[in-house]
């Protein structure tokens, strides 16, 4: 809080309780927000952070408890009510309409606050606000053609256009590059200085310590406490989040002998994409058993499409993919899976995660053809149930039971379902794209441990991430993509974020 902080909080959520079948997402949670402060909210996956914010925004209704703004209780029946009180929410999944332009999205959002503007006026508004906050968002671009970072800015503009006094951001930096994250931090600090109160949900302790004024921690639906950022440390916060802390030694990858013959070879691969961003041009690479090949690049550099093509989800326009010498370019996803390829898709909603099916079904679908789980086309229900129970336990999926609809899980727990499904198949090739996005600290460590274990067991792993520190810690070699082309391949040992950052930005390495 700035020194001249107001004495009364602007917004108070008082004794909020919210239950879903089988889980208490929030249990008598209280939190408050002063004008001009950045208040971070931390907690493990499924701790109830998003639920609490959804209640403040009127997206969900609490079972009991109330939200007060300037001392008066708010009757929030929908986001419309929250918006009219100047509460804005940048959600974990953006709430923009991809088939409309930024300006059209703006018009929609404004017109529902009672301000009737034309598309032309909407365009002007986007321009003016972009200029004022230095955000550089093109008003006439279709949202679906924008990078994730720009989409997030568009989302922010939407809230700012409605003069938000309270701004809620749910894991805003988990989709951003380090550069974009830094810019967002700057913007948030400036907004706070203008008197906006900001709730910031994040899993990145170091970032939170840097920009937040106060920090609140949730654990399994309960408020553990609120501390001043000045007095907190990464360790004290982690302890609040999980209860006790075990000292998990972080082993760095080091350099290990690897096999002579590559498992997977990509030759001159080109892939077309719906938008210009994400096209892949003439990429060649070799993936050896027993190595983790990190794939760096700003989002939209083609990493998503390249891995999709390798997994068989996306059509190859040109080039070849070989597995143990055989051309697999024209094999189906299924056939590639049988040959040991596992794929964690960048967007779980677009590939491989069915929100309307149960957690158990999501886990079993790709392995259902396995001899262990079916015989002559008949499912062996007992074996399946055991497998599902084991996976839920092993991957620490926080869910009331295997039959819960997967779409109701918290963001991080949905990601765990996908990881559990792909990793529990004992793959010999792992193609992983942004696997740890949205995971809390402990689960990220767990995923890294599994990746290392698979590598040590001889699997070939391609691991894309926008987090350079993660890549340096986990990889043996790092391939950098820039605008769909290979900008360079470097050894992880001795690689620095600065050097990789230069390559990612298109500066050629000598």
């Amino acid at each position: 809080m700035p020194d001249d902080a107001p004495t009364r909080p602007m917004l108070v959520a008082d004794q909020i309780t919210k239950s879903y079948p089988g889980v208490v997402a929030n249990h008598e949670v209280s939190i408050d927000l002063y004008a001009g402060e950045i208040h971070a909210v931390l907690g493990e996956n499924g701790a109830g952070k998003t639920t609490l914010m959804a209640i403040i925004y009127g997206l969900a209704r609490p079972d009991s408890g109330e939200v007060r703004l300037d001392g008066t209780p708010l009757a929030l029946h929908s986001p419309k009510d929250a918006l009219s009180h100047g509460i804005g929410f940048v959600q974990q999944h953006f709430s923009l309409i991809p088939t409309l332009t930024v300006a059209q999205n703006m018009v929609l959002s404004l017109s529902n606050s009672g301000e009737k503007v034309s598309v032309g006026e909407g365009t002007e508004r986007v321009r003016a606000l972009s200029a004022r906050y230095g955000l550089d968002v093109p008003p006439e671009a279709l949202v679906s053609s924008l990078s994730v970072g720009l989409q997030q800015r568009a989302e922010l503009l939407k809230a700012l256009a409605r003069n938000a006094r309270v701004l809620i951001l749910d894991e805003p930096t988990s989709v951003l590059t380090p550069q974009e994250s830094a810019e967002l931090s700057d913007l948030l600090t400036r907004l706070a200085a203008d008197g906006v109160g900001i709730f910031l949900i994040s899993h990145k302790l170091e970032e939170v310590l840097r920009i937040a004024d106060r920090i609140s921690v949730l654990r399994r639906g309960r408020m553990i406490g609120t501390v001043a950022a000045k007095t907190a440390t990464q360790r004290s916060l982690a302890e609040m989040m999980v209860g006790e802390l075990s000292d998990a030694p972080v082993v760095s990858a080091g350099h290990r002998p690897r096999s002579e013959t590559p498992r997977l070879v990509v030759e001159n691969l080109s892939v077309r994409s719906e938008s210009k961003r994400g096209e892949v041009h003439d990429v060649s690479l070799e993936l050896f058993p027993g190595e983790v090949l990190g794939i760096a690049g700003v989002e939209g550099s083609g990493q998503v499409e390249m891995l999709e093509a390798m997994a068989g989800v996306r059509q190859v326009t040109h080039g070849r993919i070989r597995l143990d010498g055989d051309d697999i370019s024209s094999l189906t996803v299924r056939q590639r899976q049988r040959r040991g390829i596992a794929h964690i898709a960048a967007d779980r909603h677009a590939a491989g995660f069915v929100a309307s099916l149960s957690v158990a079904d999501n886990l079993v679908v790709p392995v259902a053809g396995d001899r262990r789980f079916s015989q002559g086309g008949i499912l062996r229900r007992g074996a399946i149930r055991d497998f599902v129970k084991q996976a839920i336990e092993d991957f620490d999926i926080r869910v009331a039971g295997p039959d819960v609809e997967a779409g109701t899980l918290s963001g991080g727990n949905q990601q765990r379902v996908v990881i559990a499904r792909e990793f529990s198949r004992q793959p010999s090739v792992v193609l992983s794209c942004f696997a740890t996005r949205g995971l809390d600290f402990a689960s990220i460590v767990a995923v890294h441990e599994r990746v290392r274990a698979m590598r040590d067991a001889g699997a070939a792993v391609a691991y894309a991430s926008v987090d350079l520190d993660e890549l340096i810690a986990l990889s043996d070699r790092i391939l950098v993509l820039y605008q769909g082309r290979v900008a360079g391949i470097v050894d992880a040992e001795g690689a620095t974020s600065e050097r990789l950052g230069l390559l990612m930005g298109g500066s050629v390495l000598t």
Partner: protein
Amino acid sequence: MTLDWFSLLLVAAIALAAPLLFAALGEVISETAGVINIELEGMMLVGAFTGIAGALASGNIAVAFASALAGGVLVAAVQGIACFIFGANQVVAGIVLNILALGATTFLLVSALGADVTKSAVTLERLPIPILSDIPYIGRALFDQSIAVYLAYLAVPAVWWLLTRTRFGLALKAVGERPAAAESMGVNVLKSRWAALLLCGALAGIGGGLLTLGGLGVFTPNVTKGIGFIALAAVIFGRWKPVGAFGAVMLFSLVDAFQIRAQALGLPIPYQLLVALPYLVTIIALAAFVSRMRPPAALAINYER
């Protein structure tokens, strides 16, 4: 085959196209908002029926069209109640409504209109536009039609404008693409979908009414003969755009007009094959193009908060 033959073909095609066009435009609006109406056929059939009933009861063509519109809206309302209030699957509800519409209109034809199915009502007059209707070859086809046909063509730019240039249109696109996101922007998803659905019912009802009132003024069982389904196909073929749907409707209508005139010519082609031609073209067009089409993302998915 002379130029005159083509001119007559065009006249027939445009008359055939108008009812289809009303239904297809209504469906474009509805599907944009994420609501699919398999019962488009049923809407048209009921519209055709209530249109005739209104005409017989009042003897007034405006009243007749108003009741055709109301008939379509009635079917839409039942669909809305089933899907938006009771959460029924849109496709299933649509199929059931089609069966219901056919049964109900056939039954009522006998019990309410009386068994005299050939009793004819007032029908639409042609309204030639001076000068324009004298343009050689195309003048008669385009400018010597009934007012309803002119309105059908005006409806194409009107619906385009509605969907792309108004806030209402943006809201429809939003709820058809990402209802949850639309909701969080403050759009009322259910209200928008109701509006789109009822609008579709109204347009399809008028289209159905035009079938009977614009023609012989009699209702026969299943008088729509599946053109509601062709309108559905035209929406897909037209890529969910009003102008696209117009193009698709014109294509089907030209083929249909051709097969009617070909029958009259007495060509040595089995007439069953000719009658099947428009449907065949529909199937081929869809099979050839459908994989490249991207429907609204939330089409046919009910929205639950």
